[in-house]
């Protein structure tokens, strides 16, 4: 299993190359029910998200959606930050989700965060067990069209993940998402 630790302590990042994650194409249908137990997920490596308690994320894609699956051992929310490429702009799209399966999108450009930003057609479900929870998210690609219409095999975007209200790292510390077949 591929295990990547993204965004170690700031000091450790100094000479670190960008983290890189291969996003594979989903080989079979994914049911968005909060449990990433469909066979397709077995092909997806786990990214360890630095957080006070263990957190992992996996990604897959198909023609219509970018899929994400989170496993969290505490009740904090998860923040997804996705920077489609090209273009050469610092704008990225964020989605904060909580264990009650509420999703709040935002657009960040430099120092400004726009909260009246609504993704369309997002499918989101969570499964809660005590403090721990898991989530499955499917984001239609067209939500990224205004920044980049290039996605799927051969494209490379960058992304980052956070828990709770921790400030996001600078864009140049985002990891790479390499989309493969």
């Amino acid at each position, binding site marked *: 299993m591929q295990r990547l630790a993204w965004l170690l302590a700031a000091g450790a990042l100094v000479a670190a190359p960008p983290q890189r994650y291969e996003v594979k194409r989903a080989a079979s249908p994914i049911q968005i029910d909060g449990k990433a137990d469909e066979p397709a997920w077995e092909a997806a490596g786990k990214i360890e998200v630095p957080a006070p308690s263990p957190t992992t994320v996996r990604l897959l894609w198909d023609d219509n959606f970018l899929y994400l699956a989170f496993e969290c051992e505490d009740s904090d929310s998860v923040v997804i930050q996705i920077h489609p490429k090209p*273009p050469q*702009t610092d*704008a990225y*799209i964020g989605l904060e989700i909580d264990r009650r399966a509420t999703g709040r*999108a935002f*657009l960040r*450009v*430099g120092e*400004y*965060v*726009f*909260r*009246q*930003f*609504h*993704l*369309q057609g997002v499918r989101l479900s969570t499964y809660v067990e005590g403090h721990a929870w898991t989530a499955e998210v499917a984001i239609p690609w067209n*939500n990224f069209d*205004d*920044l980049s219409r290039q996605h799927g095999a051969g494209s490379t975007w960058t992304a980052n993940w956070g828990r709770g209200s921790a400030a996001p790292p600078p864009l140049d510390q985002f990891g790479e998402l390499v989309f493969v077949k």
Partner: protein
Amino acid sequence: MTKLAALLALNAPLFYGAPRYEVHRATAPITIDGKIDPPEWSAASPAFEFLFPWDSQTGEKQKTHARLLWDDNYLYVAYEAEDNDVTAQVQGRDDFVYRDDTAEIFLNVKPSQTRLYYCVEVNVRGVVMDYVCIDGQYYMRRFDLEGLQVGVHIDGTLNMRGDRDRGWSMELAIPWKNFADMAPPPHIGTVFTANLNRWDGTEPHRRLSVWADSKLNWPHPHAPANFGELVFVK
């Protein structure tokens, strides 16, 4: 020479080259129905006329005038457009309404920067495309204004060819709260920068007319460094 005369008529300071408009406070309630009732708009500075900076455009240069007012909650915009053939096809929110007969306002509530500004485009059907614009280049249409009021009045027939229409008018009420991520609402003395534009017709080389000349080489309104100034006054 005509362009210079137009600028002088707008009292534009020549050292800056961009127009300036004093936005007065509304003194009467404004019903957003597209009809520019004189009592509602009597407090406004005189309407300004849009420019036609691009020679490549063909067809009749039909006039557009606009006025603005404000209060604690809203920016109000009124457009009056001569139009002998009123036409609009786009019906979906955030679809490209500027391909129709459309009025636009681009508003930079943080003029110390020119990367980011808010855009509202409304066709004569009242269909809205609203977005945050980044670097004049990326139109982030998943941004949605809340509480926007739109009124359009058509003096003629929509999409009926062969007859002769007279024009259309439009009123917008845009709640200030929509811009809270960048700036608080204006107070007396605040200066925001903006451009107001009108697209006329759906044929090739259709007309774009503007309040502030974008100074771009092709008919295109996105040049935030060349916006005009809206000065908020009593």
